[in-house]
């Protein structure tokens, strides 16, 4: 059985995976970001949010992304910025939902190297003003702030660990999964 200290250390490792994956993803879309832990969400008049759940044996939770609409517009691939739906609520939620999907995919790829293969849900998105997110009633939760020229992106990691859950050490013999942008033909 793991202690509370073990669980806290595991949560720190999961957060490190999330932060690394976030940097990689934003970089891939041309957005330079500066990370700082925690931080309080400003009460924006408008915000877009995406959440994706995950679950593995002994571990479950969610990843939440929240930011302002104009930041989401900056994340949108350049080739799509001239479309008729630019700035529409549906388009903004779709873009952030796909980013949440790609972010959790990158986190999963990092966990695969440790022998952990969580199942991923599909994203749920919404937009509105003065969105408030309650802290989960169980498990651990932490906010991560990514500052860019366009504005702030907040990423929350929620994780509930079973008492017997231990994050396996990195397995050197495991062949790393394909990296983002790579392909294989069968």
């Amino acid at each position, binding site marked *: 059985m793991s202690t509370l200290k073990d669980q806290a250390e595991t949560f720190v490792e999961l957060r490190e995976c999330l932060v690394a994956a976030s940097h990689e993803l934003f970089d891939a879309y041309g957005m330079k970001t500066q990370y700082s832990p925690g931080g309080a969400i400003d009460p924006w008049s408008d915000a877009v949010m995406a959440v994706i759940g995950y679950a593995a044996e002994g571990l479950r939770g969610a990843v939440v992304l929240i930011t302002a609409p104009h930041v989401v517009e900056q994340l949108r691939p350049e080739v799509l910025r001239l479309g008729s739906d630019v700035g529409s609520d549906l388009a903004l939620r*779709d873009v952030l939902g796909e980013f949440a999907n790609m972010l*959790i*995919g990158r986190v999963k790829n990092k966990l695969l190297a440790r022998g952990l*293969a969580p199942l991923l849900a599909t994203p749920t998105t919404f937009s509105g003003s003065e969105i408030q997110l309650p802290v989960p009633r169980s498990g651990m939760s932490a906010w991560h702030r990514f500052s860019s020229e366009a504005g702030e992106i907040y990423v929350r990691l929620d994780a509930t660990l079973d008492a017997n859950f231990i994050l396996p050490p990195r397995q050197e013999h495991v062949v790393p999964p394909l990296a983002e942008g*790579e392909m294989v033909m069968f």
Partner: protein
Amino acid sequence: MQTKIMVADDSQMVRQQVRSALAGAGFSVIEAHDGADALSKLDQSGVALLVLDVNMPNMNGLELLEALHKKDEYAKLAVVMLTTEGQPKLMQQAKALGAKGWIIKPFKPEQLVAVAQKLTATTAA
């Protein structure tokens, strides 16, 4: 006549990116927003290649692949997976169900076009 390609992905952004890349290379692109939508649109569509996401609501990509694998009329349909998933077990599952390739998002447009040209040429031969 333009070769038809279907993209099945629950993200409009991804569908638009795929459409932009493939339409620019001369393909005709049909969109489906999940596996069930793709299955209903594939019938009589003349699609030569399916670009298929894995994690989708209603029917996911691997469920659709399994459904197609059981139907003789789709024996010549080439399928390439386009997903954030890189889990080897899922890739093996897709391969066993007849998928021809696996691309991890985000994709490079020229990479997707090259794959589409290769797989549709094979299908047409």
